[in-house]
Structures are given as C-alpha cells and as structure tokens.
C-alpha cells in the first residue's frame, strides 16, 4: 500500500447518556478536547478535521456537519463531514487514514457526534424515511422490522438457540460495568433477564437492543514521523476496508453479511493478515443488536457461518476468552449515539492495544485488533485493522505501562424533568411535505398492482427477474430487458411479530411484516401477513396475495391487502 503510514495517537470521549444537557457542538468539543489533551496537542497542531454524524433528523439540524464544525475544531481548517449511516463512526477512521496517508496532512482530528434525544416523540420516527417512500413506507414500517427479519432468518437457517444470542447482550452489559462512560453497564445481568424483557418485534426483545443515546468521541491520527514524535506508543492503522451491498434490502442474503466479508478482506489484505483467527487478538464488531455482533464476527471471518453463537455461549468472546469481542461493552453496554459509537470502537482498540483500558483491559498483550461498523440501509460494512506491530507494551524507558486511561468523561446527563423544564427549550415540528415521483419502473409496477398483476423486470445477463422492478440492473449496470408478470404466490423468507408501531407506540394485536419471495422472481419484497395465527407462521410457508376489491385499488403497494397462507379456506 502506498502512502505514508498512519497511526492513532490520541482518543477521548464524553459519557454516553440517554440525554445530555450539552448541545451537539458542546459534546463534540468535550470529546475533541479530551482527545487532543490525551496526546498533549492543541487545536493549532491539527492540520485537518474529519467529522461524522448520522442522519440530520436526529439532532433536527439541517446540514449537521456545518452546525457541528466549531465543536469539532473545524474553524479555519480543511473540514468535511462524511456519512454512511451506522457505519459512519468506523468510516471516519478510514477517512482519517486517507486524509493523512495522502501526504497532504500530518495530523487529523476525527470527531463523531450524535444527539438523538432531540427527536420527538421517539428517534425511531426519524427512520421512517429511510424506507422506500412508495413501496415500503405505506406499510408504516418500524426500523426494528429489518433487524427482526434478519435475526429470525439467521436463527432459523442455522437452528440457533436464542439463549446463545442473548449471551452477547449479557457479556457486553457486564463488560460495560468497567467503562466510566457507559450508559447501561450491569455486572449482574443474566441471560434470563434478556429473555424476560419486553418483546418489541419478535425475535427482538428490549434487552437485545442498544439504547438511544447522546454522546461524542474523538480520535487523533498522525503520519508516521509525526506520530513517533507525539508518542512512543503509536497504534498503527494497518488496514482499512469498506463495501456496500444492494440497496434493495429485501433482495439481500439476510443470513450472512457478505459486504462485511468484502470489507474485511480488503482490510486484511492491506494489513497483511492471512489468518485472521490467529492474527486478530481483540475485536470490536458492531453490536447495535446482540445477534448483529455474531453476524459480524462471521463476516469478519473470525468464525464459521452460524458458529459465532456457540462461541458466545462458551465464553470464547469474553474479555478473558480466546477472542475478546467488544471488551468496551459495545453499543449494548456503553450506549449507541450512532456515529459516536462506531468511533468509540476505534478508541477502544487504541486503549486496549496500548494497555490503557483499565478495568476493561484484555489480558495478555494484544498486538492487533479489528473494529467494524455497519449501516446505511443496513448494507455497508466498514472495517479497520489496528496494531502495535509488536511494539512496546512498555514505555521507551523500559517501564511497564501503568497509566490512567487518558479519556475524559465530560457531559452532564439531563433528567426527564430537566429536559421538560429546561430554560429556553424550543419545540419544533418540521412542516416539510413531499410528493415522491414513482419513476419509470415503480410507476409501471403500481399500474400492474391496480390491475391485479405483479410485474418484474428481467435482466438477461445475470438471469434474474427483479421484484420490485428496476429499469437498470444494479449488478450488471445495464438496462434491464423486459417486463415479466410473476405469480401471486410466494414463500415467506422471514417474518417478525411486531408489537410496536413505526413511532414505538404499542400495537395490539401485533402485526406480521414479512419478506416474501414471489414465485417466478429472484427477489423478495416487504409486505404483511394476515389471516394467520402468529404462532402458525413459519419461514418457508407458502403464501398468496390477497387483493383489495378492484374498485378500491389505487395503484399502491396497499392494493395487495396482505399475504395469507396458500389454500386458505
């Protein structure tokens, strides 16, 4: 790999909080200042600033990058915000790497911030707009659907025991008990606690999910020569990788995150890692849900497909296990201010590899770690490999490393009452209205639905029938060839029993979203199951479309009322 070598030389973070008194820019400043203090630099030493933050809808600030720039140290400097959804925090380390590796800058300050508490009544509402406006949003999807659908299929295909998955939530919340910035550390939590928690969208329960949070993290990276002047214990960024799967999430392999494998292979190749299971000593995979950590450990090639859950059960992933995973406590334990949580994983590897993780320190002398995050429309993998190259676990003077963790834990939690009564608080409802054009392919698809037909597009090169249809094949990048009518029947690829609405209001009875592979097509699409007892639903169940009466059809995904088991009386 060409370019100068790049090292992490400092890191800092705020506490992760349900609600912070600080504004987003104040949080960013707390973290950025702590990171600079940790390596005895000032803002004047910083040549460029890389910022990330997830959707603007959380903070409720349009062009959040510009809004946060002063707190991130961007005043008068080359500054840019990047964004790949949940993958953003780890991606910022990749951005920092190429910013310095290019040779243009010697020191870059990387800042990740999220303030989700501004969104009312619940941040889940802000996710509604990530779904397809025409084909999915009329179904009023909750973001949890995607995870519940993926988790159900993962469990079913590999025959997994939910207890083994819950072991991840237990491990991370216990690990977080040793983290001074953690929101949900709990030393005595058990698998039974997780299994007894409220069912949100089966199989996802309350304690399977990371909490919405406010917080910020910052990291300082430097070019090789400068890094060696700043510290005698730089932690090198040895490899970076990132990769996207198709944006048609219902068409994806929901069992295995191939995009994570692609990103991991890119990062391992660059780092010269040939046998990740031997050469990676500590991992910080992305864990917004407990099953996701397992999914990602498999994508990172650290376990065989379907085998990570038993590793969780057997303690392999514990802090003192063979492959410590999320020793920080992860998103499930420390908290999930989305972009900040990803960069927290880079900071944790920095502290772990320098032997500075205090109560969370992984035993032995880990020399190489991998951090990973995932996001966008749940299809991006971002991977960073970091290592000390057998570098000193002792200081230059030959003394063993005994150092107080350098990170500050700034930030003040704001209580519910404090939030309601804060001086000067302003309530605002975004009044923007939209009219989304269906476009060529989906317009024709909707015409078909009104006429009681399900239409797909054929790509003759990759021999797929695409449903929902598109005028171009995103794999072959050519025009698709012809319209094809597909069957009204299909197979349930995965489903969830969902007890909450899109904005987290209770639903009784629950609804059953499902990904249905329509017979005669190569894709699946999102719809609802009906006329079926939730206990009777199975992956692989054969279903058929139930149409609204002709006079009630308007050219909408809702012209199909729902799908029901085939042969229904």
């Amino acid at each position, binding site marked *: 790999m060409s370019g100068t070598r790049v090292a992490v030389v400092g890191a800092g973070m705020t506490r992760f909080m349900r609600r912070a*008194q*600080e*504004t987003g820019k*104040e949080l960013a*400043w707390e973290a*950025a*200042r702590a990171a*600079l203090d940790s390596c005895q630099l*000032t*803002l004047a030493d910083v040549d460029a600033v890389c910022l990330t933050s997830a959707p603007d*809808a959380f*903070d*409720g600030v349009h062009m959040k990058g510009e809004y946060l720039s*002063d*707190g991130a*140290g961007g*005043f*008068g400097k080359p500054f840019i915000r990047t964004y790949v959804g949940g993958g953003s925090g780890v991606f910022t380390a990749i951005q920092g790497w190429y910013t310095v590796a290019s040779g243009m800058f010697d020191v870059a300050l990387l800042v990740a911030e999220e303030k989700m508490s*501004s*969104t*009312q*009544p619940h941040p889940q*509402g*802000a996710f*509604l*707009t990530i779904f397809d*406006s*025409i084909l999915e*949003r*009329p179904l009023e999807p909750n973001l949890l659907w995607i995870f519940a659908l993926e988790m159900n299929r993962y469990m079913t295909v590999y025959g997994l025991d939910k207890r083994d998955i819950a072991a991840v939530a237990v491990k991370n919340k216990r690990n977080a008990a040793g983290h001074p910035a953690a929101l949900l550390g709990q030393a005595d939590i058990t698998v039974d606690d997780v299994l007894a928690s409220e069912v949100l969208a089966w199989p996802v329960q309350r304690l399977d999910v990371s909490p919405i949070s406010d917080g910020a993290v910052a990291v300082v990276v430097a070019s090789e020569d400068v890094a060696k002047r700043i510290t005698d214990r730089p932690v090198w960024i040895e490899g970076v990788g990132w990769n996207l799967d198709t944006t048609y999430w219902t068409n994806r392999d929901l069992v295995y995150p191939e995009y994570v494998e692609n990103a991991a292979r890119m990062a391992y190749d660059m780092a010269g890692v040939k046998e990740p299971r031997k050469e990676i000593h500590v991992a910080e995979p992305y864990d917004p849900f407990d099953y996701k950590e397992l999914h990602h450990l498999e994508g990172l090639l650290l376990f065989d497909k379907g085998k990570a859950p038993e590793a969780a059960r057997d303690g392999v992933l514990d802090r003192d296990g063979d492959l410590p995973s999320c020793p920080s406590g992860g998103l499930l334990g420390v908290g999930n201010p989305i972009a900040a949580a990803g960069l927290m994983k880079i900071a944790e590897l920095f502290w772990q590899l320098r032997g500075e993780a205090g109560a969370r320190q992984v035993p032995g002398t880990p020399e190489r770690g991998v951090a990973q995050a995932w996001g966008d429309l749940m299809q991006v993998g971002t991977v960073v490999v970091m290592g000390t190259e057998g570098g000193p676990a002792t200081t230059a003077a030959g003394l063993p490393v005994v150092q107080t963790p350098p990170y500050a834990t700034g930030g*003040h939690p*704001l209580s519910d009452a404090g*939030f309601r009564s*804060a*001086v*000067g*608080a*302003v*309530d*605002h*409802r*975004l*009044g*923007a*209205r*939209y*009219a*989304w*054009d*269906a476009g*060529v392919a989906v*317009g024709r698809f909707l*015409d078909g639905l*009104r006429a009681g037909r399900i239409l797909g597009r054929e790509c003759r090169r990759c021999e797929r029938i695409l449903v929902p249809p598109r*005028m171009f094949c995103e794999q072959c990048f050519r*025009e698709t060839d012809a*319209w094809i009518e597909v069957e009204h029947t299909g197979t349930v690829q995965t489903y969830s029993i969902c007890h909450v609405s899109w904005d987290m209001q209770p639903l009784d009875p629950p609804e059953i979203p499902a990904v249905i592979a329509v017979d005669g097509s190569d894709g699946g699409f999102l719809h609802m199951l009906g006329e079926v007892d939730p206990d009777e639903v199975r992956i692989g169940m054969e279903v058929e479309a139930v149409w609204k009466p002709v006079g009630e059809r*308007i*050219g*909408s995904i809702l012209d199909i009322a729902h799908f029901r088991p085939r042969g229904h009386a």
Partner: protein
Amino acid sequence: MWEKIARPDEVRRWPGGFPVAHRYTPGVAGEAFLTALRDRGVILGTRCERCAYTYVPARLFCERCFAELDAGVELGPGGTLISFTIGFAGLEGEPLDRPVTLGLVRLDGADAVLLHHVLDPGDEPLEIGERVEVVLRPSGERTGSILDIEGFALAERADE
C-alpha cells in the same frame, strides 16, 4: 429500450411528510445566556483572552483555540449596525403586510454580531454604521427566549 409509460398523470406520485418533531435544549452556555436574559435583563457573552475575542451569545468554548470559556461578560446595550435587510416576503413567498427589517449588530464590548429585528425603522433609510440599542421585553414577560429581546432600536430616533 425503455418502455413508454401510458398514463403519466396517474399513480406516479406518492405524498408524504417527515413526521418528526424536535425539542431543542440550549445546552450549557445557551442556558446561561437565556437565564441571564430572563432574570437579569442582560446580554451575556463569553470572552477568550488568548484570542482576544468576545462571543455573543455566550459559548462554552472558543472555536479558535478550543479553550473553555466560563467567565461571562455583559455586553451592550448599545451597539453598531453592521448590516441589515428588509424582507417583503414570508416563508412561503407570500407578500407581507408590513416589511420586516433584520439587523446584524455588534454590541459594545463584543466581537461577534447578533441577529435580531430592527424596531420601527421609520421612513428614513437605514445606514450601516448607525448606533442602535437593545430593547428588552418587560421583566415579567420574559421567558428565557431570544424573543425576550424585542429588537434593536435606532439610538438617535429612540430619543425623538
């Protein structure tokens, strides 16, 4: 080839909104600024001695050198008009019955400028560089909002 769409006026659009609301809290420095405004009727800024720069409204940190700023300074009430604009159209482009005049003002003692309404500008044209003075709402009516400031009155004309 692309197929021709038969009825372009039908089923081509799907209406919707962005159904989220936000509650913005003003943060550490914002809360100090708004509390001082409400309770003491003063405009609070913060000064960075190292950068010799005074921010208003008060900020927690100096964006130039990253120093923490904790000593509040009271600014104004007099100031200088740095720029202004007169708005004749509302948010949706509708004509306004009464034009709105907005001014950027550097309060005495401050380096940063503050945006607010210029009150009763009258028929005389405004001039950049004119002296203005902050007008507050009566103490009993202040709630801890930027609207606790009614606006800037033109200093000379306020004497008339």
